[in-house]
C-alpha cells in the first residue's frame, strides 16, 4: 500500500526519470546524428518537468497577481525553465548546422560509417 501511494504521489518524477533515461539511451545507443540530437532535446525537456513539478500547488493558479485568487504556484522555476528552453533551441540549431556540414564533408551522418572511413586512412 505504501509503495502504491508513493508511486501515485511521485508519478511526475517517475515519468520524468523515464524520459531522461530514454533521451540518454537514444544519445548513446543510436548512431544517426539527427536522432541523437532529438534524444538530447528529449533529455532537456525532461529536465523542464523535473523543475516545474515541485512548484505546483494543488488548488493554486498561474502566478499572475489578481485580486480574485489567493494561492499561486511558485514562479521561480518558470523563470529558470524559460531560459533553459531558449538555450535548448539555440544548442539544437547549432547542432543541426554542424550535422549538415558533416554530411557535406563525409557523405553520411551515421556514426559507424564515419568511423569506418576514418579508420581506413
Amino acid at each position, binding site marked *: 500500500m505504501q509503495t502504491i501511494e508513493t508511486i501515485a504521489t511521485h508519478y511526475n518524477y517517475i515519468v520524468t526519470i523515464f524520459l531522461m533515461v530514454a533521451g540518454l539511451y537514444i544519445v548513446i545507443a543510436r548512431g544517426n546524428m539527427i536522432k541523437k540530437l532529438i534524444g538530447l532535446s528529449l533529455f532537456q525537456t525532461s529536465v523542464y518537468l523535473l523543475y516545474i513539478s515541485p512548484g505546483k500547488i494543488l488548488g493554486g493558479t*498561474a502566478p*499572475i497577481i489578481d485580486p480574485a485568487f489567493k494561492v499561486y504556484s511558485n514562479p521561480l522555476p518558470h523563470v529558470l525553465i*524559460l531560459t533553459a528552453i*531558449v538555450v535548448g533551441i539555440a544548442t539544437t*540549431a547549432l547542432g*543541426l*548546422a554542424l550535422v*549538415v556540414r558533416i554530411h557535406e564533408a563525409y557523405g553520411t551522418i551515421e556514426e559507424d560509417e564515419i568511423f569506418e572511413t576514418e579508420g581506413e586512412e
Partner: protein
Amino acid sequence: MKLDVILRVVVKLMLPFMLLFALYVQFHGELGPGGGFQAGVIAAGMVILYALIFGIRQAKRLVPQRLVEAMVPLGVLIYLGTGIVAMLLGGNYLDYSTLAHDSRHGQEYGIMAVELGVLITVSSSMLAIFYAFVERGR
C-alpha cells in the same frame, strides 16, 4: 499546381493575424502569459510561413537579409544600452528605478525596453537561422 491557390489565399489571410498576435503577446506580456521570447518566435514563424508558401525570394523581398543581419545584434545592444542608461542616470547597472521620475514607473519602462530588445533579437535570430538553412540548399 492547382491546389497552390488554396494555400496562397488562406496563408495571405492568416499572416496579418499572426503578426498582430505576436505584437499582442509582446505588449500584454505584463498582464498575462507572454513576453519577448514567445512574441519573437511567433513573428519569425510568420515570415517562415510566408517563405514556405510563396518562396524564399518573395520572403527576402519582404524581410531582406541585410535587415535581419542588422537586427540580430540590435536587440542585445538595446538590452545593454538600457543598463548603461540606468548607470549614467546615477543607479547601478540594470537598475531601472532611475529611468523615470518614480521608482515604480522606472521599473515599468525598463521592463518594456528590455522586452523590446529581446523581441528584436529572438525574431531576427530565428529568421537568420532559417535563411541560412534554406540558402545552403539552393
